[in-house]
């Protein structure tokens, strides 16, 4: 018994040491990002490097906004992600409810076809979609960043997720509403939609995160700087020769911080929402 306890003390210590090591490696980039963002321009190339900046230059964060219309990028990223998320939740829950609870011919065939499309890489559909968007004069607008993901890749995933959820809802509820004279539409609005809010929260996080961080689509579609999203704007910052790392890091902190704050307050939902990609 005693040797057993000593054994587990030893193995616990090893566990802590290993976890601390990997965690440190993973946290270094965050630490370095914040530190650099507070350094004076002249201290960036200093050797040995300053771990804690002195003096601390909060002004870098203000300079970011005066160099580029950073508030616009923030606004663009936010409103695109909000629209995509709201639309996906609405249309996916409608379809998910129909696939789970309403009887209609070819229901399961249609569902399987939609489900199988989840394996289509968006990089492959990007070329024809770009052609079509340019024929419709929608290149260099936000339309291709909002509607195709909402009713395409994210949407199909949402349908799958919400169908799984609605299947677990007892059919009695549905039947009772029907007897009370509810149409499927009123049943959905008054009973089913409120019920699926927990599942929707997971979907919201998944979609918002992906939309906020999306890089490929903005890169191919947007050319006017006033339309840029945060990831695109940041990536173009580095292109310019002689990167001003202190400003780039300040901008990176600003782009990362909102999501990280939400993440720390809603970790369980976040981890659930992102790990969901694993279940398809």
């Amino acid at each position, binding site marked *: 018994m005693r040797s057993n306890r000593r054994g587990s003390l030893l193995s*616990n210590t090893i*566990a802590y040491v290993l*976890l601390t090591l*990997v*965690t440190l*490696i*993973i946290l*270094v980039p*965050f630490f370095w990002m914040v530190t*650099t963002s507070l350094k004076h321009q002249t201290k960036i190339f200093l050797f040995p490097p300053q771990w804690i900046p002195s003096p601390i230059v909060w002004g870098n964060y203000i300079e970011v906004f005066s160099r580029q219309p950073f508030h616009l990028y923030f606004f663009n990223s936010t409103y695109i992600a909000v629209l995509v998320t709201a639309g996906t939740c609405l*249309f996916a829950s409608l*379809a998910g*409810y*129909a696939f789970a609870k309403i*009887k*209609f011919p070819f*229901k399961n065939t*249609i569902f399987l*076809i*939609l489900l199988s*499309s989840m*394996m289509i*890489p968006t*990089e*492959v*559909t*990007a*070329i*024809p979609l*770009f*052609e*079509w968007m340019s024929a419709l004069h929608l290149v260099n607008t936000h339309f291709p960043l909002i509607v*195709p993901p909402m*009713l395409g890749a994210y*949407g*199909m995933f949402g349908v799958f997720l919400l169908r799984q959820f609605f299947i677990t809802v007892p059919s009695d509820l549905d039947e009772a509403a029907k007897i009370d004279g509810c149409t*499927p*539409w009123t049943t*959905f609005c008054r009973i089913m939609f409120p019920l699926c809010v927990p599942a929707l929260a997971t979907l919201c996080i998944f979609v918002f*995160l992906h939309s906020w*961080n999306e*890089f*490929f689509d903005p*890169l191919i579609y947007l050319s006017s700087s006033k339309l840029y999203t945060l*990831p695109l704007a*940041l*990536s173009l*910052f*580095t292109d310019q020769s002689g*990167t001003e790392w202190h400003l780039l890091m300040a901008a*990176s902190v600003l*782009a*990362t911080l909102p*999501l990280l704050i939400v993440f720390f307050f809603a970790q369980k939902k*976040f*981890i659930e929402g*992102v*790990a969901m*990609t*694993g279940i398809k």
Partner: protein
Amino acid sequence: MLRNEKWYGYLFISPMVLGFAAFLLGPILTAFFMSFTDWSLLRDISFVGFDNYKKAFADDPVFWETVGNTLYFSAGLVPLNLSLALGLALLLKKKLPGIDFFRTALFTPVVTSLVVWSIVFKYIFATDAGLINQALRILGLEGPAWLYHLELTMPVVIVVSVLKNVGLNMVIFLAALHDVPKMYYEAASLDGASRWKTLTNVTLPLISPSVFLALILTLIGSLKVFGQIYIMTGGGPGTSTYVLVYYIYQQAFKLYEFGYASAIAFILFFIVFLLTLLQWSVRKRWVHHEE
């Protein structure tokens, strides 16, 4: 009332069905069609049969280099990611005090933008002002130009990508480990099985469906690597970090060779398709584990 129900069904699914047709099925069929043409902004379109595929396989050394680089990236990333994720999940399973902190910290890169992550690491691996080379200089060593080195650049990108996403597989494995019924461990310890034996004979077989799923998803993801390459290396030095999606991007959106780019994109789709079929067929055999 009841007779109407099916029309409500069709109405409710119609946005998603239309979206599927317009943004998934339509484009994938069009991409297939385009891959047999010389579609480009620079020419009138004409049908060229298998020329694009022939060009890729026989006449374009960069394509083969791209395939090789992509496989190199996958071969490096997948085993590293899975073994590290599994190791971390086994450590986190212990429920030691303060363990939640580690889980949160290790998961943080997953919710961080790939662009930000790549930019920060581009800075950390910078030749002169980079953190790594400055640390080496403190030890009296002269670090290499990590991101401008034919042999070193790809390994750096692999490590950066593993650190970005290891938390995802980690939580998938952690969930699988929590689902293993306690009685198996009790039985193993009654039989006097060592820890290593318990791991290899009890734990791993029981979570193998999750491991396989993570393997396929990570592999598919690694074949589609783009953002970190675009930002950290721009495909370089030379073409040493050209990968499939980067090459598709180059051909389609820099050179406007939509026909050729579609052929390469379709080759990528075909590989992903085969992997997905493999996953589905193997998963069917494992269903009893997942109940």
